[in-house]
Structures are given as structure tokens and as C-alpha cells.
């Protein structure tokens, strides 16, 4: 079970004055159960890229394989692909429309042709997975707070039982606590369901803590790809394109330059603490 992209190109408004290549020659493989972070700033092509994963955008050229099957081949069941890859757009709460939260979450499974009872069962599971309390199920989605709306919207996609969950900047506009809560919830979800999760963000610090693999996008191309540690080694290049590595990475590099015996691999506060304490044993009181 995997998704494979081969030489995917996408050109906006082809053949007009506004023609623009949004993504160029993307080759990627996404394996089952992975937790992937896609980083890039606005206009780097990251949103365009993920819209290819469930077939909402069709590549101008290149091939996309889902479980070995070419989705651009004639007769490929697009609907199945959409059930397989769940896509949560940026500000998903802006898509809420039903009279209550429960109905809204049921919208996806209902479209899949699932029986009402099963829909509700799935909706309950999904709402529980995103940590929304039962008392909210009968409320209007418009009466929820910002963080709760976002949860309800994510549940709406989870209820469709996707194998791959793609989230486009799930923390945009939330306050720090709201951001940490959502990211924790997603991380827990990944562990519990073993779903493949793809997290799109422009914050290195958010992503470093959770994901197994980072894909850095710049100007429509994959610039770096690998484990957080590997990617952050290029912190100087990342800075040039406006994507600084987490602050701790810089601290570790500078400490190392100053001759303190630490490894400069740490990408999270926890790792950095251990590393510094190890390197500076003498100074601890």
C-alpha cells in the first residue's frame, strides 16, 4: 500500500498569459504508515502537490501510482482514490455547513454510500479520535470555538476511513496551545490507527517534533528529503529560502563551533537538553 509519484508536472492556466509551472518533475514515494511533513512557504507548490494525491488536480504530465495502479489510466475508479486518500484543506472549518456537528461529520461517509447507522458509528469514532466531547455533537458547527471547529472538520474526513490522511496547515490561525493540542492529537491518531499521515506546514519547529520524514519544497521542486536531522543539516540553504531550521539546531551548531562537545543533530528541545547535559556534565550542579 503506497503512493508513488513519477515525474509529476503541473502547469496552471496552460496556454494563457498567466501560465505558470506550479510543480516540476516531482518524484516521491509515500509508504504505508509513514508520518511525513511537507514544508515550504506560500507558493512553493506544496498545496498543489497534495491536491494531486487524491486526484483533485490532474498532473499536466507524469504518472501517479496508488497501490501500483496508475490513476491516470482510463477507467481508474477516482472515487476509490478519494476514499483511500483523505484530504483536509487549510482552514477546513470554513467548509462546515450542516445543522449540527454529527450531520456534518456524516456527510463524507454518506457520500460513500454507507448506511446511516454505520455513518453515525464512524462519525462517533472520528469525533472521538479528534478529541471532541460528546456534548458538542448536537451543536451547530458555527457555535464551536476555533479549535473545536477545526477538530470537527478533520473528523469529517476521518469518518471516511482514509488510509492516507493529508492535512494542509492544520494549525494555521490557532493560538500556541491550540496548535500543540491539534498536533498532539494528530500524532496520537497516527500511532493509534497506523494511518499514513502527511502534514503540510511552514513551521519547521512544529514538524521536527513529530514526523519521520521531511520533504522540503521550493519553487515547485523537492529541494530536500529525508529524516529531520538530515534535512536540518542544510540549515544555511534553508535559511536562504526563508525556512529557518528550529532554533535549537542553531544553538547546537554554535555550541559545537565554540568547542563544546555536543552533536549538532538535535532538532527538538528534548533532544537538545539531553545532548547539552551530556556534553557539559561538569557544569551541572
Amino acid at each position, binding site marked *: 500500500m503506497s503512493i508513488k509519484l513519477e515525474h509529476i508536472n503541473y502547469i496552471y492556466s496552460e496556454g494563457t498569459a498567466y501560465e505558470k509551472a506550479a510543480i516540476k518533475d516531482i518524484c516521491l514515494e509515500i509508504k504505508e504508515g509513514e508520518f511525513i511533513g511537507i514544508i515550504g*512557504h*506560500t*507558493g512553493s507548490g506544496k498545496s498543489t502537490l497534495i491536491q494531486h494525491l487524491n486526484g483533485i488536480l490532474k498532473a499536466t504530465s507524469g504518472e501517479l501510482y496508488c497501490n501500483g495502479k496508475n490513476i491516470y489510466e482510463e477507467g481508474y475508479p477516482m472515487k476509490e482514490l478519494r476514499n483511500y486518500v483523505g484530504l483536509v484543506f487549510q482552514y477546513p472549518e470554513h467548509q462546515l455547513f450542516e445543522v449540527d456537528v454529527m450531520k456534518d461529520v456524516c456527510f463524507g461517509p454518506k457520500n460513500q454510500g454507507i448506511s446511516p447507522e454505520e455513518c453515525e458509528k464512524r462519525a462517533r469514532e472520528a469525533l472521538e479520535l479528534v478529541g471532541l466531547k460528546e456534548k458538542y455533537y448536537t451543536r451547530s458547527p458555527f457555535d464551536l*470555538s*476555533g*479549535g473545536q471547529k477545526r477538530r470537527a472538520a478533520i473528523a469529517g474526513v476521518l469518518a471516511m476511513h482514509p488510509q492516507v490522511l493529508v492535512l494542509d496547515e492544520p494549525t*494555521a*490561525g*490557532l*493560538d*500556541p*496551545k*491550540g496548535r*500543540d493540542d491539534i498536533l498532539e492529537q494528530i500524532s496520537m491518531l497516527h500511532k493509534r490507527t497506523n494511518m499514513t499521515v502527511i502534514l503540510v506546514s*511552514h*513551521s519547521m*519547529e512544529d514538524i521536527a517534533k513529530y514526523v519521520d520524514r521531511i520533504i522540503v519544497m521550493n519553487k515547485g521542486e523537492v529541494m530536500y528529503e529525508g529524516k529531520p536531522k538530515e534535512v536540518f543539516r542544510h540549515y544555511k540553504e534553508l535559511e536562504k529560502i*526563508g*525556512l*529557518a531550521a*528550529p*532554533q*535549537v539546531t*542553531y*544553538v547546537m551548531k*554554535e*555550541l559545537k563551533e*565554540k568547542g*563544546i562537545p555536543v552533536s549538532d543533530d538535535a532538532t527538538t*528541545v*528534548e533532544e*537538545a*537538553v539531553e545532548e*547539552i*547535559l551530556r556534553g*557539559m556534565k*561538569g*557544569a*551541572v*550542579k
Partner: protein
Amino acid sequence: MEMIRTENLVYEYEKHDDEGNVVGMQRAIDDVGLHIKPGQFIAILGHNGSGKSTLAKHMNAILVPTGGTMWVDGKDTKKEENLWDVRQSAGMVFQNPDNQIIATVVEEDVGFGPENLGVPTEEIWERVEESLKSVGMLEYRHRSPNKLSGGQKQRVAIAGVVAMHPKCIVLDEPTAMLDPNGRKDVLRTVHRLHEQEHVTVILITHYMEEVVDADHVIVMDHGKIVMQGTPREIFSKVETLKEYRLDVPQVTMLAHELKKRGLPIKDGILRREELVEELCRLN
């Protein structure tokens, strides 16, 4: 005279149940006393729903207090006759860059405020030019705002306020919807305005990194001011900040954790260089 002063400021609104009946009063601002001097750079921190945006809207007389008083540049915001003076002295920049740009051409949008103030045509052009220059957007003056990035739009919005020649600029989460590049852009612009034009700046945000350079930081929770002080004083209380659903820059966090584990690091580290220096000193 103080730029902004409040005494026992209270703002209450009616709370409704599902059927729309009034079930009581909700206090969005609870007994707030503020003293902001001209030329200061003030940051107001708080999580969503802490009352910081409600407070900001008072500074522009979009909301008027239901209790207590607020004076902007010496004028009581409650008094009808002061309304336009207050709005001119305290310009406001909002969160969503798309929803505050009125015109379809950048320069026309910047001219909107002065037009409303009845500034003569020639002077509008001068003001538009100098404001666009001060936010570094002069070369975009003929563009459509729709074709700009979020950060650029926000700078246009700032120019629109600057063109009204305010004494004070209130920015209500101006970076919440921007990416890191846009955020840096906007902050740089705000700092430059503060240093070069000597306007009073009130920056409302929930990003801690943005308040490091402020003169004074105010933390709000449940409509009250719960902490006040220099950034260093505020950031030395990591645990308290967490209680208020806030978070500290990663470097401050790292320093705090190291201290907890026995490294004698000083409190309130704000910058990377400081931490590195401090650790080298200890080694």
C-alpha cells in the same frame, strides 16, 4: 499626556442560550488599567478568547466600554464627538489582510483613509507616496492587492493606516494568517515605523517570538491583565506563561529546561546568542 490610558475598563456583552434568550452577562474585559506612553512599543499577549482583541477594538472606538473609561490621546472614547479624532489618532490593522483592503489598486487603498479625513487631493498623493515608501511597497503602487502575498497585503494595510498620520498604531494579530516570510516582513516594517516615525505601537499577538523586542509586554487572560513587564521579566516565568495557554520561544524553553536539570543558567534568555554565550561561560 499618555497615549492610551484606561481606568477600570470593563466590557460586557449579553450571553445567549440556544433559543436566543439572554442568560447573563459575559465579561470580555474585566477591570483593566493601562498606561501607555507616547513612543512606546507595547505587546499584548494572550490566547484566543483572552480578551486581547476586544481591548484592541476599544482603542479605535469600534467598541466602547460598558464600564470605566478609556482615553486615547486624552480623549474619552465614549464621547460621540471624539469618535473621529480617536480613530484618526489610533489607526488599526486587522488580522485578515484580504478583509481590510477596500480598493482594487494598492495606491487607491492607501488613499482611502486620507480621503475620508477630507485631506486635499495633492496632500493625499504626498501621503500615499510617503506611506508606501515607509512600508517598502512603493514599487507595487499600481498593482492589484489580489496579486500580492499575505505579508505584502498586510504592509499595504499598514500604509493605509500610516497615511492617516496616526500617533499610535494598533495591530490586532497582524501575522496570524501569514507564513514565516510574511511574518518577518510585517514585523520588520512595524519596527522600522516605530524607530523612524516614532509612532506608538501596540502589537497584539500570540506569537512569542514577536514580542522579544517590545518595550513592555502585557499578558491577558480571561479579560484581565495577568502579567506585565519587560520581555525578559515575562519570559523568565515559563511555567506561569504555560498556565495562560502561551508558549515561549524555543531558546527560552531550552534554557528553562536546562536550568531545571541543574545548569545554573540565568532567567529570561530571549536570544540564541545569549544562550550560547551563557553555556560557554558555564563550560
